[in-house]
């Protein structure tokens, strides 16, 4: 046996960029996160070639789950070609040979910042959410050591209190995004900065969701068919954004989450936030044959 036979040819980077020991650690942390839904598992988040806070947590999970037959979709604010989404997607395909797609139903891994697609995800798909602040208790307890004890004691009284304060001060719960949600009846998590509209999509979902915060070094998960309940008072129902009746000016589709585009005359136009979902509708209207999957919402309502 020669030394040559024992070594592999030199390459600039390992498959999937991260070295195998890093990937093994992240896999083990993911398994723990799945076993304790909503619990934040600390992990040794490594430096990757994008800046912290730009999706390094999501990227590490995606790189770890990567296989040569992976089809990856990356979304930022609902769009596939926004600055960060395209940069992350290109990096993943460059270091892992993954096929790129913007079609939700074609993707095996969907890494996202701020949105969950409108089309329903399936059991064979994994949603990776980039999380800037994994700690739902941060607004009431900035000290992480104390916050971890509060999670251990399921001590969430102060979270209820801030929701109640919003109600008293404004007559409504003002939490826009990152709405604190109870997972599997035990741990309150922040479902990343997804809007209120997207939180119900996680409840009893068919797909696995991994939420990863690279800078804060925490992984947590919502396994398939797990309850995710936004914290609400018995007499004040959870309300999603008022987008039921808005119509996309490009695709004429209504009843989904919209981007508002301020116009020079002081009015607003609306376009579908899930950009590829909009593209599919336009293609269909133009006579193309396009498969549009079942959606979580129908006419702005979830059944």
């Amino acid at each position: 046996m020669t030394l040559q036979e024992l070594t592999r040819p030199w390459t600039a980077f390992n498959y999937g960029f991260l070295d195998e020991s890093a990937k093994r650690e992240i896999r083990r942390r993911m398994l723990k996160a799945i076993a304790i839904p909503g619990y934040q598992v600390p992990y040794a988040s490594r430096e990757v070639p994008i800046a912290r806070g730009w999706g390094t947590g999501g990227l590490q999970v995606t790189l770890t789950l990567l296989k040569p037959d992976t089809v990856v979709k990356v979304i930022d604010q609902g769009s596939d070609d926004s600055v960060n989404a395209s940069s992350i997607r290109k990096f993943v395909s460059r270091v892992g040979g993954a096929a790129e797609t913007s079609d939700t139903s074609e993707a095996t891994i969907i890494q996202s910042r701020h949105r969950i697609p409108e089309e329903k995800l399936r059991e064979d798909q994994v949603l990776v959410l980039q999380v800037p602040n994994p700690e739902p208790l941060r607004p009431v307890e900035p000290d992480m050591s104390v916050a971890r004890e509060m999670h251990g004691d399921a001590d969430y009284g102060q979270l209820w209190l801030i929701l109640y304060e919003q109600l008293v001060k404004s007559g409504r719960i003002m939490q826009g995004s990152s709405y604190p949600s109870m997972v599997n009846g035990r741990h309150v998590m922040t479902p990343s900065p997804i809007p209120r509209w997207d939180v119900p999509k996680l409840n009893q979902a068919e797909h696995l969701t991994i939420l990863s915060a690279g800078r804060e070094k925490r992984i947590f998960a919502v396994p398939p068919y797990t309850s995710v309940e936004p914290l609400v008072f018995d007499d004040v129902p959870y309300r999603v954004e008022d987008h039921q009746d808005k119509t996309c000016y490009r695709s004429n589709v209504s009843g989904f989450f919209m981007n508002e585009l301020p116009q020079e005359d002081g009015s607003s136009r609306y376009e579908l936030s899930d950009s590829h979902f909009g593209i599919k509708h336009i293609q269909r209207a133009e006579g193309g044959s396009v498969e549009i999957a079942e959606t979580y919402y129908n006419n702005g309502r979830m059944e």
Partner: protein
Amino acid sequence: MAYVATRGGERAIEQAERLFRDDLGVIDRARVDALRNGLPYLIDRVMGEASLYEPDLAALALAQAGGDLYEAVLLLRAYRTTQPRLAVAEPVTQPDLFTMRRISAAFKDIPGGQILGPTLDYSHRLLQVGVLSGRDYRPDAVEPAAVPAPATQPSLAAWQKAQALIPDHPVEAVAPDDIPDVTREPLLFPASRAHKLQSLARADTGGALALGYATMRGYGSVHPTVNELRLAEAPVRLRHPRGTIFSAGRVRVSQTEVISKATTGLELGFSATFGWNEVKVIAAATLDLASNQPNPHPASNEEFVLYHTEPVESSGFCIHFKLPHYVTFQSSLDALRRVKADRKATTTAPKMERQPKKEEAVL
């Protein structure tokens, strides 16, 4: 086709990067060498914050980032993370250091002597403007001392420990592979001493200085005195699988102990980092010392300090606010508008609304 209008960002993004790289021009070996040789303290700072000692790669990172320090540190750390940890070097103790500069502010003279070494501390900071009009600046030649300073020096703290001025820390026996490594484990609190010192070693120089300065300026209960400050080269000694120890070269290091009066005696704060960076190690040693105090000020609270002086994490998060946030903004906007609509719809004031304060009513 109509849907094209919803796409089209990717080309602009690519051109934006090209524009940045176009400004920097061709990066060749000569530029890397010029940076490496001309800016050794900058190279040291990047290597320290990246926790990777490789002057050529640090110079390359600086060249590629056009001198943006945070970008250079990120480049180097992202490269570092792909490298396996092959071995753990033997511990370096103070008497092992090949010392170029060693001063103490605690005593007029110390065993082994004060060695000023290379420093600008006592110089007049005058710009040599003649250089710009073609008169090269040639530094005066160094006059060698009649008796060269010894290459290695004893530890001052060891002398103080022998005098029973400082309690001796119990020595923990840890197998090399079990040495905690903050690049491979998450930082958890209360942090182990190893993780704390490693985090401070790779902390942002500016961040460590800001918080260390706040602590030494009075937002804390410690009054540090520099016990011993060293700029040195540390031998990197590795253990061969057969058991023999061999040298793999030397790395430039800085190291400081600051000392402060505690209730029962003296307390030491310690910091060491790759490269020569005196400001960083003095600030970091002060932060180390201050974090042991009861009820530390936020500027010297361990969790606060270690999280917020992380250069890659803090700079990355800061610049991420440039990314679009219209989804979350839309969500907040929706809540605000609904509240306004609610108020308009209710003729009488909503039950739960608080009474306006007197001064608000006047406005």
